């Protein structure tokens, strides 16, 4: 086939015009005017966080009501946890450090899913390595199972013998100063995201 110079010219002109036409639309993608304000997942509407009463590392009775006025970060785990719990607790400790004076308005509560091994003394020692302000909570297997049920938390024993593990929900519940369960931060967020959300909850 012989190329017709006129046709080629026309096609080139068409291409050029098309690109000009398209370039008129090039801008950055419309950004998120409707994105949620928190980095965590948000409950809407928020309801009161289910109450509990457990044995604590700082007092014999850990309840949420005791910490009204503070933002409570509630998480579940076990002290023999190899990776998830140490990461979460280190992240929360860093977040508290990043909050400066506002850290006094934040309370971390760590509820065990392994009462068999996690005594109050064992939890106290474990948590002190991350942040001495953290509170551990334990109780009877039935009491702990009831708390997990209220929060939709799972904990499944894996393995046998002394070195068993517990597969457990790794998210962190964010409870505001009025005791409402406002949000849930999935595992894996960095301290800056917690700082952001805690500041938001302290202000709102």
């Amino acid at each position, binding site marked *: 086939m012989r190329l017709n110079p006129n*046709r080629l010219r*026309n*096609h080139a002109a*068409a*291409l050029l*015009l*098309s*690109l000009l*036409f*398209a*370039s008129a*639309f*090039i*801008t*950055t*993608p*419309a*950004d*998120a005017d*409707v*994105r*949620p304000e*928190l*980095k*965590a*997942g*948000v*409950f*809407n*509407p928020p*309801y009161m966080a289910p109450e509990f009463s457990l044995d604590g590392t700082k007092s014999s009775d850990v309840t949420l009501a005791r910490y009204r006025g503070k933002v409570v970060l509630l998480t579940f785990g076990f002290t023999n946890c190899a990776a998830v719990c140490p990461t979460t607790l280190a992240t929360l400790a860093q977040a508290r450090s990043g909050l400066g004076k506002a850290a006094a308005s934040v309370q971390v509560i760590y509820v065990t899913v392994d009462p068999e091994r996690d005594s109050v003394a064992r939890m106290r020692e474990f948590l002190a390595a991350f942040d001495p302000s953290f509170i551990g909570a334990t109780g009877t297997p039935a009491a702990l199972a009831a708390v997990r049920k209220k*929060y*939709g938390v*799972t904990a499944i024993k894996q393995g046998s013998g002394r070195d068993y593990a517990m*597969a457990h*929900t*790794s*998210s962190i519940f964010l409870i505001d100063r009025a005791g409402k369960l406002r949000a*849930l931060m*999935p595992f*894996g967020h960095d301290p800056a995201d917690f700082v952001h959300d805690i500041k938001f909850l302290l202000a709102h």
Partner: protein
Amino acid sequence: MRPHLLKLLMRVAGREWRRLTAIALSLLALGGIGWAALAPIVVTSHDELFEIPHGTYARRMAGEKIEILPHTIHLTLGLNDVLLLRNKDEVPHIFGPTLIMPGQSFSLPFAQASTYSFQCTAHANGQLNVIVEPTPAPGWERLHWRWRKLSNAVWHSPESHHH
């Protein structure tokens, strides 16, 4: 006018007309492709919504198998990057990564492209995967995204859902 001259004029006019039509069509096609490849993707909502309909619990209790959440959810940063789960039933449901009260919704934003796995007791394998893909860049990626969206809308029926 002589008949042979008229014929010649009509032939020339016809050729010109075909040429102009071809140019117009090329312009339209190239313009369309150019637009699809380069124009920003504008979305009215970032939410990817999944709902538990009213009466789900009762229907389940009656032995009906109800599937709502897929095992894998695909999201795209900057476009549909907020997983919105809503419970319109009368009882609390474990839905995806959390427990959601009746009438409540849970809105989970994603800020990084990655594959996320959540424990989800509603699934047989106990896991919900959320694959978050990066925002399609101008050019081939946007063109491909629009093509996939269009072909999904035209050809595909909704994926089989499991809750």
